[in-house]
Every structure is written in C-alpha cells, then in structure tokens.
C-alpha cells in the first residue's frame, strides 16, 4: 500500500471501527447515555416542535391570504399616527374621509389596476317575520366586487350596474343568513328587513371559509347591498379595494394608486398622505418577518439548551475517558496513533449527540402530531420541514464535535505508560 493512501485508509477504517465501538459503548451504558443526551433530546424536540408549529401556521395563513387574493390593494383613509377621535388626530376629518367621487378616473390613471370597488359598511339588525338577528355586517358594494372577491353565487344573480345606479333596495345574502332567518330552500325573490327598510333578495352567496385570522371574531352572517343604496350618509366610512391586472404588478399598482390619490386629494409635495395603500402581499411579508423573529427567539432558547446538553456530553465523555484509561493505554501500546484515539472518542460523542438528535426529532414529531390533533389550536397543518430535520442533525453533530473535542484530545494525549498503570 502506498504511503499516500495509508493515512486516509487508516482513518476510514478507524472511523468505521469507532462507530461500532461507540454504539456498543452507548448500548452498554443505556441509562447513562439517555440521561446524558437528555439536553440534546429536549433541545431538538423543542426546536422542531416550534418550527413545525410555525410552518403549520404559515401554511394556513398563506393559504388564507391566497383565498383573500394576492392581487388586491386596499385604499384606506388615514388620520395620521395620532388617529382616534380626540384632538390628537393629525388631519382634518373632511380631508381624510373618502367621498364617492374620490376614485373617479382611477382606471384611466392607473394602468396596472384592472378594476376597483368602493365599499362601505355598517351594522344593522335584520329580520324576516319572527326571525331576527342583531348587529349584522351590511356591506355596500359595486358590481365589480364580484370579480375582485370571486365569491361563488350559489343562487340567484350577482349585482348588476343597474342595481347600483338606481340604488335599488336589493340584497345578496350568504347561506348563513338564509339559515338564520329560515328563508327556506330558495330565498331568491323573497324579502328581508334591514333596519327599517325592506330589501328583495336577488342572490345567495357562499359564506366565507372558516377563518382563524380574519373575521374569526365576526359574525358569520353577511348581507350585501348595492353601494349607492348603502350610502345614505356622507359621514359613513368608505374604503376602496382595487385589483391589479396580475399579482406581479402589485408594487407598480401601489405606486400608481398613491400618485393618483395624492393628486385627487391635492396634496402638496411636503404634505403627508392622508390615506394608506396596502396590499395583501404586504401582510404576507409582515407575517413572514414576525415568523422569522419567532424562529430566531426559539433558536436562541434552543441554542442555550443545546449548550447545556453539550456540557453534559463533555462531562460524560470525560468520565468515559477516565474509566477507559487502561483501554486507551492498551490501544496506544498496540499501535494506535493519537489521531486514532481522538477519532474514536470524537465519534463516540458524535454518535451520542446524533442519537440524541434522532430521539429529539421523534419526540418533536410526536408533539407535532399531538399539537395537530388539537382542533382549537388550528395547527392541523403543522409539520416538520426537511430543513428542520437537517438542522437538528447538523446542530447535534456540531454539539458532539465541539464538546467531544476536549475529552477526545485528553484521551489522545494520555501517556500510554501512565494509562496502563491506571487503576
């Protein structure tokens, strides 16, 4: 065998041997090994569980945003940082509130915007005969709302331009309202009372999907009426939802809308915006940065527990080195190089940590499964992503190598004569 090949082959052989030796050593001291790796197990289990929970949360939030529509841009009134009712508000009310004509000409000036709808809403009680419901969200919408929100009309028809232009007393209800007011199988053509006014039901749409983030605290009942019908008072709150031609145009559309709105409002260069232009995209980014922050904090906590675990590993490896001093002496006597001894103990620490990592991962998977089965937690999409598995093993290995190094060096440096004399 050539000299160049000798060392690498020797290292591979010793590594292979050491792996087996380490496993038998760990198996021979099962309880001790388990207790030693507890720190690693807990660390890995907690990090994988937190990551799984976050991944699940992210998944469900993102899919919720997805149904929300990623090409939507909200234009909202903005009273300044000191908003609220008191004298602290920054901008005068009549400068902030939207007027119906505020958005005139938007499509001509904003080429990235496909369509928009003005929206106003208020709460009112609804009733039909003896059935009634208080504080139902009544939303005034324009016909383009149907294209922007893409909510399925299951019976009847969507609003037409004429409904809006003539401010007809018509409404679209969702299937929850249909049930609550006991409107029967086909309520289209029937009428309901909204406040003191009578509205004809022209269509029924599907209630929005069960939502944990948005509208979770809202009532499930929704009633839609034409925008012009709803807008009975100029003091009524109004917002606008615009849809871009494609999600990729979001940033352009936002810039266009901001420019357009400033012009409509007649704001001078040094004046602040009296409105906000926000995209769903933006919320997604915000959520992502929050999720990242949580991951960082969890990572820090796990880092500490891995540190503690690592000290445990170092401790037990030092015990192991001192217990096996004679063995080390013998190995050196029969020709083991210091590097071979180093490798043996390093691999033992590594194996210990990797096994701990594996057990931690299994515990984490167990916790994740348990977490996913709790309905109220809404974490049914929780899962451990592949990169978290890799990360767990990576960190375990790193802990093993870092904290196993000192005991291994100690073993490698033992004087064979002293070691063989050791009692």
């Amino acid at each position, binding site marked *: 065998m050539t000299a160049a090949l000798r060392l690498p082959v020797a290292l591979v052989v010793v590594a292979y041997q050491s792996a087996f030796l380490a496993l038998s050593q760990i198996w021979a001291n099962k309880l001790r090994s388990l207790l030693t790796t507890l720190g690693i197990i807990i660390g890995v289990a907690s990090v994988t569980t937190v990551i799984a929970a976050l991944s699940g949360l992210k998944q469900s939030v993102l899919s919720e945003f997805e149904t929300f529509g990623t090409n939507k841009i909200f234009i909202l009134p903005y009273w300044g940082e000191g908003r609220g009712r008191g004298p602290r508000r920054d901008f005068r009310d009549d400068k902030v509130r939207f007027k119906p004509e505020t958005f005139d000409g938007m499509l001509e000036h904003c080429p990235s915007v496909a369509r928009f709808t003005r929206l106003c809403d208020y709460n009112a009680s609804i009733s039909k005969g003896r059935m009634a419901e208080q504080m139902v969200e009544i939303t005034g919408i324009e016909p383009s709302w149907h294209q922007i929100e893409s909510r399925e009309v299951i019976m009847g028809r969507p609003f037409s331009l004429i409904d809006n232009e003539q401010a007809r007393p018509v409404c679209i209800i969702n299937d929850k309202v249909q049930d609550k007011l006991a409107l029967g199988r086909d309520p289209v053509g029937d009428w309901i009372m909204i406040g003191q006014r009578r509205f004809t039901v022209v269509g029924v749409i599907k209630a929005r999907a069960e939502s944990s983030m948005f509208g979770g605290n809202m009532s499930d009942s929704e009633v839609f009426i034409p925008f012009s019908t709803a807008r009975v008072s100029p003091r009524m709150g109004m917002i606008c939802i615009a849809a871009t031609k494609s999600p990729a145009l979001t940033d352009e559309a936002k810039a266009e809308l901001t420019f357009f709105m400033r012009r409509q409002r007649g704001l001078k260069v040094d004046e602040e915006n009296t409105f906000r232009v926000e995209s769903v995209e933006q919320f997604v980014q915000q959520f992502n940065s929050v999720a990242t922050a949580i991951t960082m904090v969890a990572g820090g906590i796990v880092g500490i527990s891995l540190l503690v675990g690592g000290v445990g590993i170092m401790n037990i490896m030092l015990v192991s080195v001192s217990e096996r001093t004679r063995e080390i002496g013998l190995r050196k006597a029969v020709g083991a*190089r210091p590097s071979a001894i180093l490798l043996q103990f390093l691999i033992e620490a590594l194996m210990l940590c990797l096994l701990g990592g594996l057990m931690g991962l299994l515990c984490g998977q167990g916790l994740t499964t348990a977490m996913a089965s709790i309905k109220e937690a809404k974490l049914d999409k929780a899962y451990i992503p592949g990169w978290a598995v890799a990360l767990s093993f990576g960190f375990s290995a790193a802990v093993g190598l870092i904290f196993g190094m000192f005991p291994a060096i100690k073993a490698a440096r033992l004087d064979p*004569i002293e070691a063989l004399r050791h009692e």
Partner: protein
Amino acid sequence: MPVIRLTEITKLYRVGVEQIRALDGVNLEVGQNEYVAVMGTSGSGKSTLMNILGCLDRPSSGTYELDGRVTTRMGGGPLARVRNERIGFVFQSFELMPRLTALKNVELPLIYSPAGWWGRGKRAREVLGTVGLGDRMHHKPNQLSGGQRQRVAIARALINRPAILLADEPTGNLDSRTSEEILALFDALYRSGQTIIMVTHEPDVARHARRIVRMKDGKVLSDLPTEQDAVRFAAPVAAESVPEVAGVGG
C-alpha cells in the same frame, strides 16, 4: 545484525528538584531468535528499560535501534507504527477488552494497521490456533480462565509477526501450574524462531530464558547465558543448601 541495539541509554526523571537516573548508560544487544529475561528488584530500572524497548517511552539520551532503524528520533506517529508492526506486548494483567470476544481482542492491533485490516479475521484465527485456543475464539474474557486469557493476549501480541515479543511479568497473575503452561508456550514460540524479551523478578520464570540480564540502580549488573547466571547467582545458596533460604527463594 542484532534485532535490538541499545547504546548508552540514559533515562532521567525529575521528581521535584531531585533528578532520578532510572537508566544510566545501558548498553544491550539482542540478536535474532534470542530469549532474554530481564531481572531486577523494583527500582532497578527494568520497567523503564521495558518501556523504552517497547517504544512507549523515549530515553533522555542514547540511541535505540530496532531492526536496524533508529527509533530515538522518531515522531509519535511513526513510533506508533513501530509498536504496531514490530513489537508484541504481553502484560501481567492481560489487558483484554472485556466486551470483545477472544477473536476481536486478537484482531485489535490490525485495526490500526491498514495493511493488515482486510485479512485480520483469518490471521487472528490462525494465531489463536497457534496458542491452542482454536475452540475458544468466540468466548469473552470473563468466560476464560487466567491462563486462557494470557494466551489470548499472547496471540494478540503475535498477530503482526513482531520482531520482538515483550512480556512484562507474564505469569505474575497466574498460579504455578498455569504459569508453567504459559512458559511452555513461550518456549515453543522461541523454538519456532520468535525473539522474546521477558521482564520478571521470579528466578523460576527467568530460568526458562536462554540469557538473563540483571539490572541494578539503572545499570546492567550482569548479562549472562542462563547456565552461567545460575552458577554465579544461585551458587552460594546451592552450596550452602540451606532449606529455609531455598524456601524463601521459592
């Protein structure tokens, strides 16, 4: 050419401010297929000599040639290789790994020898057969008697066909009958051409060697063939033939 040539070997230990000369100018040559016993009281330097011969320790001065190669200037790695390939150790307390079978214990030196790695099982069986343990290969040390354990240790020492077999009180932990067995094994190995160096303080054991080196205060006191050694050192006792003294000697 001698297998071992020690030239003016000195070993100094520093204990506090005091300097101890464990070996003081030792010259020794051991040829091919010799059977040498090193004798001496504790503190005579025989253990230090053994450690230096086994390349476990380095002399403070002097040169040590093993198989024509000067080991005194070697680094840790090459020295480990010399121990692995040229020297077989047999210890008083066997030093077997309790969790490994006899076979795996014998294989141990080959783990650190890439050249021997591939054929290690076959070679280990062969050597275990040589020491008469062909039927005990898969027993663990605690399932073997003391004599058998020492045979396993001897097999382990022989596995790399060493230039010298170094035995440090090989019968120290054995009863007299088993000791005889082990010494008979050494005799057989010697007859088959093995060079053996044995450290002992028991004259009965040393008697099996063909040459006896006596150490005192770190120096070689005498270096004689066994017959002459017996004449020189045992003669007064034999001449007086005092039973009590003989009893103490035994």
